[in-house]
């Protein structure tokens, strides 16, 4: 379930602090650069999707399950639609949901984590306990249950996924806040009478930025998994919107007859997930984030 990188995220939380850092897949900057380049490519393709896609993704034709050709680089699906075009336009919906959901989770997690970490005491307990209830559910299971109950529309999907990932974000924020709170210069600033708000903004927030960035990119990769898994199960954006998970699921019946209909969406999903993982790893190196796996 939780799939690919949630394990990393949870492992990051589980590993003892101060375990030190280890080199990523490469050294920091080249890795980050690669990841950002991949991201830029994806964004360019999806933002300019209507211009880039060779065909209208909904345009059907009697030429079904055609193999790769000059006309259709990745062939056609069961009702003759161009696979490549559907991948490009489908990427748009997938990324839209992913980015929107993670942004919401980020903001919510930031607020909750800061509140819990900084205010401490009762607030901390209450907030974290509530979040723990959500955290107890396997991500996919909760997402499935909510979407099945409320109906698979794009806003519901965004909201559900945001809810599901908020606790993890909050935890990532809370940890450094807790340790930073007691730092000397923060105590000093407080004793001098700096307002709490300024304190948070000037001293605490910057510390939080690095782990947040890493956590966000990790969460983005996990969200791609969750979104595509949901649409694979039939709980994604309704037709005729193309989406990667749905394409993969529909193509299974024709797998052996037209492998590209399966390989296309699979490759897209892997590419997108890999992009965010590479970015996360690169950021980790570059920002020298403390606790690693």
């Amino acid at each position, binding site marked *: 379930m939780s799939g690919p990188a949630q394990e990393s995220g949870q492992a990051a939380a589980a590993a003892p602090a101060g375990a030190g850092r280890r080199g990523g897949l490469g050294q920091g900057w080249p890795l980050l650069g690669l990841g950002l380049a991949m991201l830029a490519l994806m964004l360019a393709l999806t933002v300019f999707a209507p211009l880039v896609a060779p065909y209208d993704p909904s345009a059907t034709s009697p030429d*079904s399950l055609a193999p790769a050709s000059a006309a259709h680089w990745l062939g056609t699906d*069961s*009702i003759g639609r161009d696979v490549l075009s559907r991948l490009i336009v489908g990427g748009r919906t997938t990324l839209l949901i992913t980015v929107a959901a993670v942004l919401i989770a980020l903001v919510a997690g930031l607020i909750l984590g800061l509140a819990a970490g900084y205010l401490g005491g009762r607030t901390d307990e209450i907030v974290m306990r509530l979040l723990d209830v959500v955290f107890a559910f396997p991500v996919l299971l909760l997402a499935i249950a909510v979407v099945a109950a409320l*109906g698979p529309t794009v806003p519901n999907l965004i909201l559900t996924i945001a809810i599901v990932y908020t606790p993890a974000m909050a935890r990532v924020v809370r940890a450094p806040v807790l340790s930073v709170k007691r730092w000397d210069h923060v105590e000093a600033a407080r004793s001098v009478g700096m307002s709490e708000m300024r304190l948070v903004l000037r001293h605490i927030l910057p510390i939080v930025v690095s782990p947040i960035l890493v956590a966000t990119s990790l969460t983005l990769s996990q969200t791609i998994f969750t979104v595509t898994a949901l649409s694979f199960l039939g709980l994604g954006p309704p037709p*005729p919107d193309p989406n990667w998970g749905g394409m993969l699921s529909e193509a299974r019946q024709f*797998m052996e007859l037209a492998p590209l209909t399966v390989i296309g969406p699979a490759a897209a999903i892997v590419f997108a997930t890999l992009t965010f993982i590479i970015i996360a790893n690169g950021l980790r190196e570059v920002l020298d984030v403390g606790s690693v796996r």
Partner: protein
Amino acid sequence: MAAGQDGALRGPSRRSLLQLLTAGGAALAAPGLWSTLAAAQAPVAGGTLTIGADADPIGLDPVTVNAFSSYDFTSLIYSGLLRWNARMQVEPDLATGYEQPDPKTYLFRLRQGVKFHNGKDFTAADVKHTFDRIMDPATGSRLKALYSSVESVTVVDPFTVRFQLNATDAAFLSNLATNPNGAIVPAGVDGINAQPVGTGPFAFEAYQPNQQFSLTRFADYYEKGEPYLAKVVFRFFKDQATLTSALRSRAIDMTWVKDPKVAAAIARTSPQFVSAPGQTSRTFPIWLNMKAKPLNDVRVRRALSLATDRKACLDTVLGGSGKVGAMIPESQVGGYDGTGEMPYYRHDPAAAKALLAEAGYPDGIDLGDYIIVAANPLDVACAQILQQQWQTAGIAVKLVPMETAPLLSAWANGTWPTLLSVALSWTPDPDAIFQYVKSDSGFGKAMGSNDPELDRMILEARAELDVAGRAAKNLAIQQRIADNAYVIQIYQYPLRWEIWRDYVQGYVPLAANIRSFVRTTWLKK
């Protein structure tokens, strides 16, 4: 079957042929004859046939069963007074013949020496017991409405039973021939919903939910020699893709798939598979809400029909498997076979635009929401194609895929705004389909049907006992519906596309969507 060509037994000749068969005794079933003609080799007894099923049965008591998934099993475990032969004609089964002293009375002569799976003899008492249960409101059987014309069922002697109807009913014999509608259950046996006992060719052996359902050959089945198979095992694969994979990897010998393109593709690439065209039994209609503008204007409706390229839909969605459709499929009496002339069926976007202009929409029209069943990929695909076709004629629609339950609710209550599609499946009698457009039925009212002439034609057709005459009347009804574009029909196709391995012999798919001919199936290995 085009009108007048169905070769089905007609009126008096039907009666006498059955009586002839009774007297003859040996020349039992046309299928027996049929399969012998069809298969040149002699059947070999023995072996296990493994069939892939896409849904578990829900209940095995034919009187109370509601789920289509159960029919696969009830059709092998139980038999009825009559049955469908391979050409979708009614023929004798547990009844060897009948007499009609008057049009509302049927006197069935029952076959002797038939046994239930528990060894008990089959007699008229079992027939009465079955129908008493159906008629009893406490049973809550959906069949009660189907047999509403049956007033009483009486045992005349152990092998003669009388059905007294309160009106002539052209659908009566069709219902008796359909499983599970006409299946006979044993009197005095409880718990058949879980432990079924019938007179069918196969007896219930074991059922592990979600895994498999096994049946064994009933040695005392009254058709000598049949069934050939020693055992039939259904294995469950709920997901279409896994079902197809199971077939290709030989985990199963036979199955049916929902998408004809899948079946055609499998058969095309692997010569070891046989894919059966079968007869079409399902249509894809677009129901129109005629209670308000703009669809209350026949010109707008006709324009919609002209803007539709049915052949293109057929080719793209079904891969050419199937035919252009009208109100009833070809497997029914008088069903449209896709070749005759139908009003406004030609694809003519220019004429559509002209009609729209005449109706006051020179710049095109927006017909709003087109509601479709989200769970049916074929429907969704067809709707997308239609949307594009209509666009070129200036008709805009917005596709709204909906959950099945609320969609059926909207359809039944007439609360859909303009366009809605939900496919119509096979029924034993075409009148059931016409009821949807009759102005005094629930559905007819929901769509705003208001054509007294059409109502009259439907009533007349239902009462017509002569088969050829009925076929002609049914065709005329369909033409009237198409002429007024009350419902836009696109194509007709088999509910399921059957596909099996080449060593499976003697199987014939039925438009009635039950696997009755497993009883004549044998394995050539």
